[in-house]
């Protein structure tokens, strides 16, 4: 739902103001062992305004999108900032940098939209394939979901933008019984686009399912990792989450202002010179990224942020307020999830830049270590200490892949780990199933080549 005439409300603005109309549409079907356990669709839309004056912010939102309610949210936001200014005038005189951008981008499918029955039948066919071919599976859980985020923005600086950014995902979680206990594995497919563009026919996923079941069986027969400080190869999924969680968050300027350790390192060598890390706005090597952002929710044109270049910490990610604080240009990282959310500094598509090695030579360079392939979740700290759950990996012994390992966790201090990187593969693979949590959720893209480094691995 594109809202065409937000600029008609500019006479209601008395200070710096962002006015946004947004609609999020979710749909989800879930099949558990052949039973439809979720068949759900939701639409959440409304209008919000955010006003800045003398260092304070006022925000208001309403689910009603009428001329009257739009005027009301601008009025309430203005009253809220007045309330804050009356209580605290110490930031009087702060002004935000002005930015202006005009852009429209619509990733809607050009195909006919399919109804929920079509997608239920689609995943039932996938389920039928698994049930017939792999009766030994203890459980089969298939989730198909779509999220459309549609935003219309107008700001007092004169920015006007419209975006329709969809994401479609197919997620499988399979389990098998081993010695009386369930062992599980999961895998997502999909990314930027609506379901009709991402998922053409069920048979396209059968090879991937066969591979996933093979990995599950390897894992069921797997061994516990040996706890300790080890040489590892982080495959693309792991490298992506390292880029996002362990480095990315510490270099979001609001977290830097809050005391993140990265604030101490600007301009310093913090990684092996092989390492370059970028938060891409929308395009990488001529290809559209999983979560393309052209104009952010403050009306700033989104630019790539080169966080680390050749091992040196170069840039933080900014919104307007942090750019004012650091006296730099805003980078277009301000994003909000729902209409009722205010924009926060968020990553877009964060990835290590590929190197010159290939996976085979990276494996052959390790005498005793691990090749880590899949991750469940990850968390990081203001200190850059991180942990990632490992849901699939293999031993490396004498330069060769060995047995699969059971679920474990790796950890380390990212700015130390990056100094141990000594090989990076030449390919790049993106993951776009991630939702980042920071007061609000937001879809993010993560990517990378495979990286060889040293980390702590948990085990028994």
């Amino acid at each position, binding site marked *: 739902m594109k809202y065409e005439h937000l600029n008609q409300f500019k006479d209601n603005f008395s200070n710096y103001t962002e006015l946004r109309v947004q609609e999020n549409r979710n749909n989800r079907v879930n099949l558990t062992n052949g039973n439809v356990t979720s068949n759900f669709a*939701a639409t959440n839309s409304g209008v919000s305004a955010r006003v800045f004056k003398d260092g304070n912010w006022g925000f*208001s939102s309403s689910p009603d999108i009428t001329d009257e309610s739009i005027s009301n949210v601008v009025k309430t936001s203005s009253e809220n900032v007045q309330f804050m200014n009356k209580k605290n005038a110490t930031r009087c005189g702060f002004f935000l940098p002005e930015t202006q951008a005009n852009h429209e981008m619509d990733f809607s499918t050009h195909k006919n939209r399919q109804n929920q029955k079509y997608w239920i039948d689609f995943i039932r066919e996938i389920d039928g394939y698994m049930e017939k071919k792999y009766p030994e599976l203890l459980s089969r859980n298939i989730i198909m979901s779509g999220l459309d985020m549609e935003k219309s923005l107008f700001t007092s600086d004169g920015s006007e933008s419209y975006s329709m950014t969809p994401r479609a995902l197919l997620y499988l979680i399979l389990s098998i019984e081993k010695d009386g206990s369930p062992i599980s594995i999961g895998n997502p497919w999909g990314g930027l686009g609506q379901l009709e563009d991402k998922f053409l026919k069920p048979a396209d996923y059968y090879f991937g399912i066969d591979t996933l079941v093979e990995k599950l069986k390897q894992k069921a027969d797997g061994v516990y990792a040996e706890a300790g400080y080890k040489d590892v190869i982080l495959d693309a999924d792991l490298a992506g989450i390292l880029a996002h969680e362990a480095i990315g968050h510490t270099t979001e300027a609001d977290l830097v202002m809050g005391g993140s350790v990265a604030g101490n390192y600007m301009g310093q060598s913090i990684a092996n010179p092989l390492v370059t890390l970028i938060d891409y706005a929308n395009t990488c090597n001529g290809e559209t990224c999983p979560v393309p952002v052209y104009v952010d929710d403050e009306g700033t044109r989104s630019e790539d942020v080169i966080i680390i270049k050749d091992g040196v910490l170069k840039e933080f990610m900014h919104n307007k307020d942090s750019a004012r604080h650091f006296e730099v240009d805003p980078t277009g990282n301000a994003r909000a999830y729902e209409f009722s959310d205010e924009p926060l500094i968020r990553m877009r598509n964060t990835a290590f830049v590929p190197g010159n090695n290939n996976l085979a030579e990276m494996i052959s360079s390790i005498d005793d270590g691990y090749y880590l392939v899949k991750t469940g979740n990850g968390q990081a700290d203001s200190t850059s200490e991180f942990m990632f759950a490992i849901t699939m990996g293999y031993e490396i012994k004498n330069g060769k892949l060995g047995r699969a390992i059971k679920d474990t966790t790796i950890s380390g201090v990212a700015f130390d780990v990056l100094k141990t990187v000594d090989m990076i593969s030449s390919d790049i693979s993106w993951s776009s199933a991630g939702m980042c949590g920071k007061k609000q959720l937001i879809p993010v893209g993560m990517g990378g080549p495979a990286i060889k480094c040293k980390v702590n691995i948990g085990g028994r």
Partner: protein
Amino acid sequence: MDRKETVNYCLDSLKKAGADKAACALNISEKKELNVEIGEMTLLRTTFNTNMGISVIKDQKKGSTSINKTDKESIDVAIELVMGMSKGSQPDDAYDIAEYQPAQSFSKGDVSANLDTMYQSLEEFVEYVKTTYPQIQLEQAIMDFNHSHSLFQNSNGVDFEIREGMYGFSPFFLSKDEKNTSSFNYTGFSALKIDKPLHNYGTIDTLLKQSVEQLHTRNIKDKFIGKMVVTPDCIGEFLDFIANDISDGKMISGNSLYKEKLDKKIVHPKLTLHSRPVSDEIADGYFVTSDGYLAENSTIIDEGILKTHLLGLYGSKKLGKSRAVNDGGAYIVDPGDRSHTDIIKDVEQGVLLARFSGGYPASNGDFSGVAKNSYYIENGEIKYPLIETMVSGNAQEMFENLDEISRDRINFGSCILPWISFKGITVS
């Protein structure tokens, strides 16, 4: 249409559209939210929200939708959508809605918040942190008041109405000096009234004090197997492992470790776990389950014995087992005999785990993660805060090997939890 008429209109329209069974839940809320960012009060938010959840069963096929509009046109569009969704789904005899119960209304908490008073509370908290713990960076603190009006009706004649006002507070902070940065930490609480300084709620002041100590961390010397004393801020994550394992998802998929364990011992007899959503002790409980039943208090684990699974209406019918009388949450663990400080005095070698940064336990209960904001314990004394230290074990075995539960507990508004110590944890 007023709100009641809106819900009536939705249900009537669903019946006219051919629904065999239908349910409609309307929630209208207004939230005032004050935000501290980097130690400064900078943002006031006022948000109005509407949510209308609609579920329909036709020929034993089910569809559900939610919208945030209440005009007739939007409801009509949603009904057409959800009827189509149910038609396109698969039949399942386990789909159902709550049976008739007498109509009831509930209310608790304030109808509106005094914004000046909220501002003053938060301002005093910011000032308290600045003066008492000057090394702390208050990265973010959010104080909010949410008032909601909810209506739940279904085609079996269920008719519930709830009005609720709730305060919430959640600070997020770390410490920093010239050289060092501590791990961040966070906590929070819910309350019907704010009647004392914010730092006196829950564990806030304790965690602020510890944050400063955690500027200077150390590694353990060698890997060991010892005790892990888990704090009230952290124990909920491990209790959730059991709760999730006895809920619909894990039970229906067949992955639950406790599927056939009703009335059997699943944890050490020292543990008794209740879910009490309608207890006066729990401010932030709930009156009605998501299926539309009046919520009741229950004992989930009684002296180590599993007394109920947490199955909803669908899960219970699907598996032929009893429906839980609530949706879980609002957890209260019965206290033990000794204070947590006395429990720590008995630890020869171990860890005081205050925050667990780790993957969710695997299906078989295996877990490993980083001990954040945590301390090394030796010979009954807390020695130093830890860095780069991992704890690992198996959640199922851990609860079987439970050591002690503290007498002292923390009421977070949404749950009341003690310190619990466990034996046989690998620390590396």
